[in-house]
């Protein structure tokens, strides 16, 4: 097992149905065993290059190629079975219901003799440090563990080239660390060539030895990390890359009004059939223009608390009240709930209910009984503020990740609720979208809307929150 060499010679790719070339005229050489970090803004062509290296850009249906892209001297498409590919979403990569069976899937497909399959499976699972046995159901694994298993599945094929497409984007910090460790161990053991696309660069630095930056489909920078980050810092920041060493400014201390906007009175929550509370009796009140961040490890109950504050989960004891009505939030009818609090979900797509962006924004005001003119004016205003005017008639599902995120925040704001609950709003976002979102939420907060955020993102919490509520085991940690 040795690493593959990569060669791009005037390579370009244009997707079917597009006018512009996603990547054009690229020249790149990667020697065996090198570890490369591939950076660039959304739309810079870095994903295209990665997918091309994986040999998955093939066929007249998908698009048109120019030049050559070779892996170990053969076109990428033909070398694709010697290439391991790890994607963002752990759930979409696991094929079988038991861990061992899943890792064995690759060798089975390649015709490895049956008596060699299980030894390879064990070898791959050891290489990534997978902590469970072969019979562990995949559904019982955490996100980070699933990604580790997926990596083991790739390693079982003994690839010469490992391609990782934002493997930690959907994971919390613990999960991300698990994956990084696994990757480090894997490349150390196998000496394969590595190409990683990631936004959060800092934690990957110890593993990589070269940085390649793409912009608008062309090579912009290439070299050792120190050199690239030193010389191109500003350009990279503009692109949305988290340049190591960026300091996030903490939220300036502000005076907050005392008008209460939401009050939770000794609310607790227990999952159906569970023996213990997921959230233990918690009392808190939220004031206008205040930004509260709820933080804590997985399973601490922070999302459940947020759902109760949003009126979307029924507390076992206690209730959450808003000043405009006597009924607890969870018992209010949806049209009435929207008057008190808006919610932004982790995955924007879960909230899309209409077929154009404009209709999405007009939906809540109409529900609240606003006049047609007022609704339309509000929609236009939001479109403008969020830079979505051009996309007003587009289908929400066709928007890019960052655009969808902005739209989902806009829809929650469209009814002008006094409070906003956000569940992991910065998940999977690059630095540019992150900054835009932060700016937007600061404006919203300063205008008097109360915010409750659940977030793993330390930088985001530091920059936005007036108050931080750490949770552990369902309780607010002192």
């Amino acid at each position: 097992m040795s690493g593959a060499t990569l060669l791009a010679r005037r390579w370009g790719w244009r997707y079917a149905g597009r006018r512009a070339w996603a990547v054009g005229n690229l020249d790149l050489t990667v020697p065996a065993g090198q570890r490369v970090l591939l950076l660039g803004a959304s739309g810079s062509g870095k994903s295209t290059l990665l997918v091309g290296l994986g040999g998955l850009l093939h066929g007249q249906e998908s698009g048109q190629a120019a030049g050559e892209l070779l892996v170990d001297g053969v076109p990428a498409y033909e070398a694709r079975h010697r290439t391991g590919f790890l994607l963002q979403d752990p759930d979409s990569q696991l094929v079988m219901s038991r861990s061992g069976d899943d890792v064995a899937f690759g060798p089975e497909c390649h015709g490895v003799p049956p008596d060699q399959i299980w030894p390879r499976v064990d070898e791959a699972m050891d290489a990534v440090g997978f902590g469970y046995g072969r019979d562990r159901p995949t559904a019982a694994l955490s996100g980070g563990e699933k990604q580790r298993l997926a990596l083991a599945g790739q390693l079982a094929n003994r690839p010469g080239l490992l391609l990782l497409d934002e493997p930690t984007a959907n994971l919390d910090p613990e999960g991300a660390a698990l994956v990084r460790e696994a990757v480090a161990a894997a490349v150390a053991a196998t000496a394969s060539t590595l190409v990683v696309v990631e936004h959060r660069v800092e934690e990957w630095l110890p593993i990589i030895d070269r940085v390649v930056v793409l912009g608008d489909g062309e090579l912009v920078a290439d070299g050792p990390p120190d050199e690239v980050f030193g010389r191109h810092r500003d350009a990279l920041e503009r692109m949305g890359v988290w340049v190591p060493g960026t300091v996030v400014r903490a939220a300036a201390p502000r005076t907050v009004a005392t008008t209460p906007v939401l009050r939770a009175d000794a609310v607790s929550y227990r999952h159906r059939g569970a023996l213990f509370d997921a959230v233990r009796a918690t009392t808190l009140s939220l004031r206008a223009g205040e930004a509260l961040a709820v933080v804590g490890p997985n399973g601490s109950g922070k999302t459940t608390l947020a759902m109760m504050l949003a009126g979307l989960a029924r507390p076992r004891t206690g209730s959450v009240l808003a000043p405009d009505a006597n009924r607890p939030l969870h018992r209010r009818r949806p049209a009435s709930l929207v008057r008190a609090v808006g919610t932004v979900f982790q995955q924007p797509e879960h909230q899309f209910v209409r077929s154009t962006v404009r209709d999405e924004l007009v939906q809540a005001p109409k529900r609240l009984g606003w006049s047609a003119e007022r609704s339309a004016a509000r929609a236009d205003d939001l479109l403008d503020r969020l830079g979505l005017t051009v996309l007003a008639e587009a289908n929400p599902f066709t928007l890019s990740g960052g655009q969808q995120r902005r739209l989902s925040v806009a829809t929650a704001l469209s009814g002008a609720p006094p409070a906003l609950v956000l569940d992991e709003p910065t998940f999977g976002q690059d630095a540019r979208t992150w900054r835009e979102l932060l700016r937007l939420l600061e404006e919203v907060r300063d205008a008097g809307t109360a915010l409750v955020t659940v977030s793993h993102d330390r930088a985001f919490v530091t920059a936005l929150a007036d108050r931080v509520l750490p949770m552990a085991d369902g309780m607010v940690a002192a």
Partner: protein
Amino acid sequence: MTATSHSAPAVARIPRWRTVDIVVTSVVAAMFGALYWAWQYMPITQMFGFFPPFAALLNTVWLMAGPVGALIVRKPGAAIYTEMVAALFEALIGTHWGTSVLVYGLVEGAGAELAFLLFAYRVWRLPVALLSGALAGAAMALLDVWIYRYYTGWSLGYQLSYLAAAVAGGAIVAGALSWYLVRAMAATGVLAPFASGRRQRLI
């Protein structure tokens, strides 16, 4: 910049099912299987499922998987496959028709498939979808009334009205509704890997 296109041979051949075709039809079938299972317990089905031809109309919901699958992936055999897998999943979850649903899946799927076959798998527009639904409905009526004989107590008149309702209902529910559903999905961009999702203009 010289552009080389990876071109398929000019000779037309039976398009092969790609992995994505198999997985997507399977998961769509699974969803319909669950829907089918739930549909039998819906209050409306419980209350009105006894009066022909209304029963036939309600039963046409069980015909949707085939046309939807075929319209999404546009491959030969897609209608039969999707309908059969949906029946299989419905049976797995637990249905009171037992595993006879598998036979239903096969025959209804064949009915739906026939329509697309008649057009050499080249036309995927609304009229063909309507025909597909109608034929599937006819197949269902055939099974319900004459082969499985669920309605042995009914007179010939009732039985024929069941057939008529099944054909009409099939065309509307399993044909037109399926077609609109696939079109709505294409608008979201999620069908991009398939020919059915590719009618967008150049951006």
